[in-house]
């Protein structure tokens, strides 16, 4: 049986080695396919990167955390940020969106930094209590909701809205995590030393 198998392998290698078109198809076509697919994917990637989504940001908060959040959103590289004055009303923001200045708007409320800070303290307090250490007073209801207001252009597809929401939520979580760590290690009562 092994001899038959060996003979078949030898036979096929001989046939293949003499079939230049076959060899070209066997090795050339996959390489060509890789080049084509890579090229298409690269074009798509460039298209996505070049065409960033315009995002109006109205930051009514004066704290450091909101500034950090905006930097985190900028780093996502998915949005073209348009910063507007904190005094602009919601009506003015929606008007801007209707005039096609942006597809998306985000209003950071005045108490954003405070909410994030409170939430961080709550989580840090829970963590310290779990380790038998004393933390700040726990406010169980603090900061569960997303503390920003988002406005979408109606033309945005649901799938894209989900992606945008996910990206912004990711940036928010990053900021929250940093704040929790700061609270755990550097805040009075939460220092671990």
């Amino acid at each position, binding site marked *: 049986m092994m*001899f038959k198998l060996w*003979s078949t392998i*030898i*036979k096929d290698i*001989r*046939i293949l080695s*003499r079939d230049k078109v076959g060899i070209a198809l066997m090795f050339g076509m996959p390489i060509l396919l890789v080049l084509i697919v890579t090229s298409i994917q690269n074009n798509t990637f460039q298209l996505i990167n070049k065409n960033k989504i315009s995002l109006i940001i109205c930051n009514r908060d004066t704290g450091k955390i909101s500034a950090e959040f905006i930097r985190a959103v900028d780093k996502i590289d998915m949005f073209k940020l348009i910063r507007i004055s904190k005094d602009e009303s919601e009506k003015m923001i929606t008007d801007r969106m209707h005039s096609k200045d942006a597809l998306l708007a985000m209003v950071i409320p005045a108490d954003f930094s405070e909410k994030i800070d409170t939430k961080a303290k709550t989580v840090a307090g829970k963590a310290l209590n779990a380790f038998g250490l004393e933390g700040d007073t726990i406010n169980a209801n603090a900061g569960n909701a997303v503390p920003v207001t988002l406005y979408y252009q109606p033309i945005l597809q649901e799938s894209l809205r989900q992606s945008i929401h996910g990206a912004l939520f990711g940036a928010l979580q990053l900021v929250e995590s940093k704040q929790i760590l700061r609270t755990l290690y550097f805040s009075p009562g939460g220092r671990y030393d």
Partner: protein
Amino acid sequence: MKPLAVNIQDLAFGYPGQSSPIFSNFNLKIAEGERFGLFGPNGSGKTTLINLITGVLSFSDGSIKLLGNEIKKHDKSINKLFGYIPQDLSYYQELSPAENLEFFGAWSGLCTQEIKTRTKELLGILGLTEVRNTPIQKFSGGMKRRVNLAIGVIHNPKILFLDEPTVGVDVQTRVAIINYLKELNKNGTTLIYTSHQLNEAEGLCDKIALIDRGKIIAHDDLDTLLVKHGQEGLEGLFLNLTGKNQGNP
């Protein structure tokens, strides 16, 4: 009485979807060492019968024995008993005759040494030694036929089925092939031959069967049949038994 090379008893076979079977209660006996010719008009069932005997087609009713071995048992050792040279050329044309014989020899159960010996012997007999390493696709029609023959007999079969082995070749090649087949028969190989070239068949076959619509209409020594039906040649006998006007517009 000579032992039987092929013994077909009560064979029944029909292709799926056909209203009536091709063979029904079909019986045929071919003795060892015969040069047996199987003839009949197109669609008479010759190729189907050879495919049934060689196991290419399977059947449910009846029995076919090759040298006493029932082929229904699908015993692989039976395959070594016979060789089959089909009408269509069956080899790898990118490979040389030696490489083809090496491959088919291995699949016929020969060892490396046997393959080398048989390859040298066959290429010499069939006049292919000089082109032993040339790809077959560069060969003429006659040379291709000779390679086809060499592949069919590489394992020294006891029974050799030949389906139009000389179709499309020149006279020299045809004579060379027929002479080689006679040589094989002298050494004990039973030949079972089918062709439409009746003049060639007359020179090769000592026993014939005429088959029409799945029935044997004549089966005897060639000379006996010619005398019995008052014919001088196989062509006249063929027309006489299968109907002179058949195929005429």
